[in-house]
């Protein structure tokens, strides 16, 4: 084997798809060629890093929502998904951020402080995926604002709740825990 064949073999080598004779040839070359040996070690390291690139499972709540949402868009007479996960309307998000979020955040803080006194320390809760419209129509700084709100709340995401009986709808941000 020569160094020029390296590129033809490395992909299958990394994922373990070389047959025995190919693997023997490749290993034989690596034993003789320091340049390819170094390169293979780097490629192996990169491969391991890439394999370790995981993402957070959004949770069963989201997967159920996703399935229902797809089916409501496709299968005839499937019940429409009426949950509040996605309520994005063009232009609404911007107004939401500018006016409603600060107001709702204040209300939520008051409400949350009363709730904590009333129910005591937070109990372990089931994660449920709910998301607000932080996508289209928002600038980077607005997204940043919403996500920072999430992080600063010391919860897994944030929920901004209006007081009981209020005509305002809950504003939900990111991944939250729901009691």
């Amino acid at each position, binding site marked *: 084997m020569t160094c020029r064949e390296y590129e033809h073999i490395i992909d299958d080598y990394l994922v373990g798809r070389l047959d025995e004779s190919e693997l023997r040839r490749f290993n034989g070359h690596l034993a003789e060629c320091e340049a390819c040996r170094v390169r293979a070690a780097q490629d192996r390291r990169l491969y391991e890093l890439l394999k370790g690139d995981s993402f957070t499972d959004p949770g069963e709540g989201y997967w159920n929502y996703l399935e229902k949402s797809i089916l409501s868009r496709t299968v005839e007479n499937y019940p429409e998904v009426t949950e509040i996960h996605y309520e994005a309307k063009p232009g609404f998000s911007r107004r939401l951020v500018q006016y409603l979020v600060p107001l709702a955040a204040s209300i939520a803080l008051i409400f949350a402080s009363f709730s904590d006194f009333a129910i005591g320390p937070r109990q372990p809760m089931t994660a449920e995926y709910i998301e607000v419209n932080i996508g289209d129509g928002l600038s980077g700084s607005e997204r940043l604002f919403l996500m920072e709100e999430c992080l600063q709340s010391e919860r*897994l995401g944030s929920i901004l709740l209006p007081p009981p009986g209020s005509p305002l709808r809950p504003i939900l941000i990111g991944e939250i825990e729901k009691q």
Partner: protein
Amino acid sequence: MSNELTELIARIADDDPEAFAELVRRYKKKIYGIAFRMLGNHLDADEVTQETFVRIYEKRHELESVKYFSSFILRIASNYSIDLLRRKQKKNISVDELAFLPEVQVELADRIESPDKSLEDAEILQAVKDAIQKLPPRQKMAIILHDIEGYSKIEIADALGCPQATVRSNLHIARTKLKKWLKKIF
């Protein structure tokens, strides 16, 4: 295709809603995972996943003539992901903004999955995620599908509609760039 999948697809072509629901259940996480890695955020991954299944449903009466369904669904998801990524890149979204969002997500992810993870590990993980996001769409898709998702070059070539040699070339260029960008780690 397995007999079970062939039967499922025949039922979908016959407008059986429960069969389509089963297909969604079977492939949704896979498609979402690929899209999330490709686009780097949940909103876009959700869009890609939904649109992929909507398009499959629209083509349900043609599905029985599809030879390899896994490649077929992968092709739809890949094409939509690449198109979406290109559309976003054309918009006036600064690199800083794009780079920021995954950081927030990683921070959230760290809280959920591994609160005790060392800072060094988190930094390396973040550097890898950032580097992947910097790759051009087709190189990114090739490396995600091959190295992370474990697809073969034949399957990737089929999904991307290009020769295997192009996939190999994309993988090679992507690796070279990633090693360059991540050289502190090596």
